[in-house]
């Protein structure tokens, strides 16, 4: 199952539509890291609204994506984590530290816009 990566202005939006295998996740990671350079994007939004489980591998991959993208000079935000998923994640100790999160796509875009206008100021990330 391939994840579509859409270019929207200066941002890339990867919308995960169904449960992904580990291989799919790695493929997604490679594709995003590749495309962020190709399109010279300023930000990446990974939408996980459709996911109703998030295991340690998925969490780590999302974290890796964020850090890799950051090294490529752009910012990532994970959007749409479901309440139940969030609760399970913290119980399992999967905290996505250092990874910005937002409620939904709209919020994610607002977050990236804000980052773009005031560089160096992190609105909602752990790194404060």
């Amino acid at each position, binding site marked *: 199952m391939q994840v579509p990566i859409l270019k929207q202005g200066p941002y890339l939006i990867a919308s995960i539509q169904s449960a992904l295998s580990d291989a799919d996740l790695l493929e997604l990671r490679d594709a995003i890291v590749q495309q962020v350079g190709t399109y010279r994007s300023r930000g990446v939004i990974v939408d996980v609204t459709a996911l109703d489980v998030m295991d340690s591998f998925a969490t780590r991959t999302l974290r890796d994506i964020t850090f890799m993208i950051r090294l490529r000079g752009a910012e990532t935000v994970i959007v749409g*984590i479901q309440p139940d998923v*969030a609760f399970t994640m913290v119980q399992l100790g999967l905290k996505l530290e250092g990874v910005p999160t937002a409620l939904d796509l709209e919020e994610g875009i607002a977050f990236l816009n804000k980052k773009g206008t005031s560089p160096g100021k992190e609105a909602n990330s752990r790194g404060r």
Partner: protein
Amino acid sequence: MNQETRTTFGTSHQMTQPTAELLRQLVAHLRQNRTQLREEWARRITEAKLLTAMTKDEIFAEATSVYDNYVEALETGTFEALQAYARNLSERIIPRGVETHEVVGIVLLLRDVLARSLFAKYQNDFALLNRILDAYEPAANRIANTVAVGFVQERERVIREQQEAIRVLSTPVLQVRERLLILPIIGVIDPQRARQLTEQLLRGIRTNRAKVVVIDITGVPVMDANVANNLVQTVEATRLLGATVIITGLSPEIAQTLVTIGVDLGKMNTVGDLQGGIEEAERLLGYKVVPSGETVDHA
């Protein structure tokens, strides 16, 4: 239950006199000496400093009904009436702070008072006394058991009800401004409640599209490592939904405890009181509250 009771009475002794006959004799004796034994019992209760929450008259009134129920249970071998009475009694005395040991104590006292009166009556015929006691003991034990268990069950029921009440009262998630929620926590947080709180909060964030949440813990009396941990988890889960948590109302005691036990709340945003928390939240959200009449400074 009755059947079991009857078998106990029936099979324990195939002596010259059937147990039923002995019991009848016993009951007759207890009826005959009702006044005196009752008074003796009430006196012993006061002496032992039991039921201190009740007045002398109340003790005597209760003693009378317990006595009559006791004799009736001995006579009929059925415990339903006694059980119902025990439940009713417990309902009345639990709110007055009567303890389990007191209830067990008075029932054991009655058992003792009655046994002594039997000793006195049958002291000349040791064999008969023995048989009477054989008939009396199992029934008396059972009665003591019934009353004590009834009391404890009633207590547990009260406790369960109160827990349920606390759970239902639990905690509302309130929206005070667009995108700003308040979660005032009152009372002790146990793991179950922490879980419920977190779930409610996360759902509230999603439905209200909240960006900032103020958790006020002024009403939380104590906090240990577990509770602190639960709180940290709540904050982390909230962040995963893209919201920021501000914790307010940490009392001096709680602050001391947390530092002493070494819980790291450093990653958490804490503000002294609820007012400060709301102001901080407004700042994060870009609100500015200005008294009416003054102009808003757009600078």
